[in-house]
């Protein structure tokens, strides 16, 4: 579905330094009843963003005008739990284009890559340093260069390589679509079906 391209992104960051943020926090189940992909950003982190009475929770980072940007910097094991792609749609719809953590849950990682949201894994130490820098200076900028696979904290000059599956990288750089690719293989799929055995 998405033919979103990604090449270079330079942005300030929004910090969310908690571990094990699961997809139920990103988008609670009661907001999954929509049948389109749009509009989920309004309910991103809903139960942290709003108080029980529906008022904005000013202590939550998304409601703090000091912090903004297209890069969400999370804690370890981000996106665990439910396979709901709505979590990725919500993050993307809100305006983020990359999520940085030291560890992502598998399904979230696939879902993100399938929607043009770049998941970037950096070391625990660098993640901790980055969180510290953002707290001191919310204007801290990072630069993500997908072609070179580099993640740079601009003010500090720290630049690290990040890993991405070469196929997925190609798709994101060129805006290619997985389903177009699979559809082009139909005759190969049919011939596989005709020759299938239980195990090899």
């Amino acid at each position: 579905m998405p033919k979103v391209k990604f090449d270079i992104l330079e942005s300030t960051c929004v910090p969310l330094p908690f571990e094990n943020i699961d997809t139920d926090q990103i988008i609670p189940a009661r907001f999954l009843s929509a049948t389109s992909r749009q509009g989920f950003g309004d309910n991103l982190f809903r139960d942290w963003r709003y108080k029980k009475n529906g008022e904005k929770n000013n202590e939550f980072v998304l409601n703090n005008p000091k912090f903004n940007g297209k890069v969400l910097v999370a804690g370890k094991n981000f996106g665990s739990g439910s396979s709901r792609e709505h979590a990725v749609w919500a993050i993307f719809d809100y305006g983020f284009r990359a999520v940085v953590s030291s560890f992502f849950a598998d399904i979230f990682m696939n879902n993100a890559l399938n929607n043009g949201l770049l998941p970037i894994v950096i070391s625990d130490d660098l993640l901790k340093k980055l969180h510290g820098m953002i707290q001191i200076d919310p204007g801290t900028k990072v630069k993500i260069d997908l072609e070179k696979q580099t993640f740079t904290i601009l003010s500090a000059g720290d630049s690290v390589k990040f890993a991405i599956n070469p196929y997925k990288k190609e798709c994101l750089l060129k805006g290619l679509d997985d389903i177009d690719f699979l559809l082009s293989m139909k005759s190969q799929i049919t011939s596989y079906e005709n020759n299938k055995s239980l195990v090899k």
Partner: protein
Amino acid sequence: MKSKTLFDKIWDSHVVRSIENGPDVLYIDRHYIHEVTSPQAFNGLKERGIPVFRPGKTLATADHNIPTKNQHLPIHDQLSRNQVERLTENCQKYGIELFGLNDPKNGIVHVIGPELGYTLPGMTIVCGDSHTSTHGAFGTIAFGIGTSEVEMVLATQCILQPKPKKMRITLDGELHKGVTSKDIIMHIISEISASGATGYFIEYCGSAIRKLSMEARMTICNMSIEMGARGGLIAPDETTFEYLKKLSSIPGIKDINSSVNEWKKLQSDFDALFDRDLKFDAGLIKPMITYGTNPGMGMAIDDSIPMSDAIGNQASSSFIKSLDYMGFKPGMKLLGLSVDYVFIGSCTNGRIEDFRAFAQIIRGRKKAGNITALIVPGSKKVEDQMVAEGLIELYKNAGFEVRQPGCSSCLAMNEDKIPQGKYAVSTSNRNFEGRQGPGSRTLLASPLTAAAAAITGRITDPREFITEEKKVKK
């Protein structure tokens, strides 16, 4: 020939094409869909103007958002009703078999797949739901996928998937009375943390696994995702074959005996290598309960909440935040804590054996006055079986009302929500913040522990209710 794990054997035989430096194009034998994660995928097909490639390999059910009362009436919530109607329309339009609301085969997708004979050894199975790992109990590669991948399967019967690493978890030894398969998996998760198996696919082995029923095996495979694994499987054996032989029919299979001969080949080679090997002793496992907001935060029911998080770090801000949410403190004991709700059901513990286990404790007793109970069978067939065994009556006599099937309070998409600040002992799979309703506080446990809490109104060690003679098989 190189030795292979069972996972490798099934995976490799489903690779249509390997992309250099990329994922594999993996053929999918069985695709389950439900109302919540499929509509956007069907929209995608419509936009592309393409059909479902192999509609006979996809099966649909409505389970996530449906009410568990008065299912014969139109769904009250407009958005939920719309989602279920869209599923019905899409299934009709694309020729997909649907076990919708009020169908005698309706139920939670991971409960009905196996009980209707659609989940068979050696298959690759996917569904837009992370608990698809449940089907691994039959010796399948089964895992949850996102909606973009649902669209891939509908369009081509294939998905693009990098091959995970392999982990073997061996469980030997004898389980003690009052300890169930739910406690086994909760124990393992508490040992290796909620992210300890991320990047891996698990094979469960060992004498204690071999002794488990299919229902009990499904509970274990179901929660593989709760330690981050894509899935977990158990090689098929006589228990698997007996379960399948007892089904009234298996779609697509005429001679089960010849299939069984094929399925017997589904074993890891004795010298196959795993990327990670873990061993556990069933005899050391006690009834478990969670105290935090991820399934890794679990402990033996008579233990105290640890002073620091699972990996032994100093109490981190995430750990403290989690305990604050639950209203707990490090070092606290949970036994005796008054609770408000008990939920039995879900794709983890919504099968007939689970309701039998619960019945074992409530039989001849009464529900505690402070408890609101949500008793939700995993499927219509489970409900029918409960009627046949007199369990509905038994539950009623003990003060429990049995609901109609669905995912219910496990994720609280419908009305079955646990209120703000209330404690629920739940047989489901996730204790995330707000999972069972905004502000709800979930304590995951086995059906036996849930039953003990339902009777006493407090967190109670289920072993107090069970004698050696009545030892549960699970």
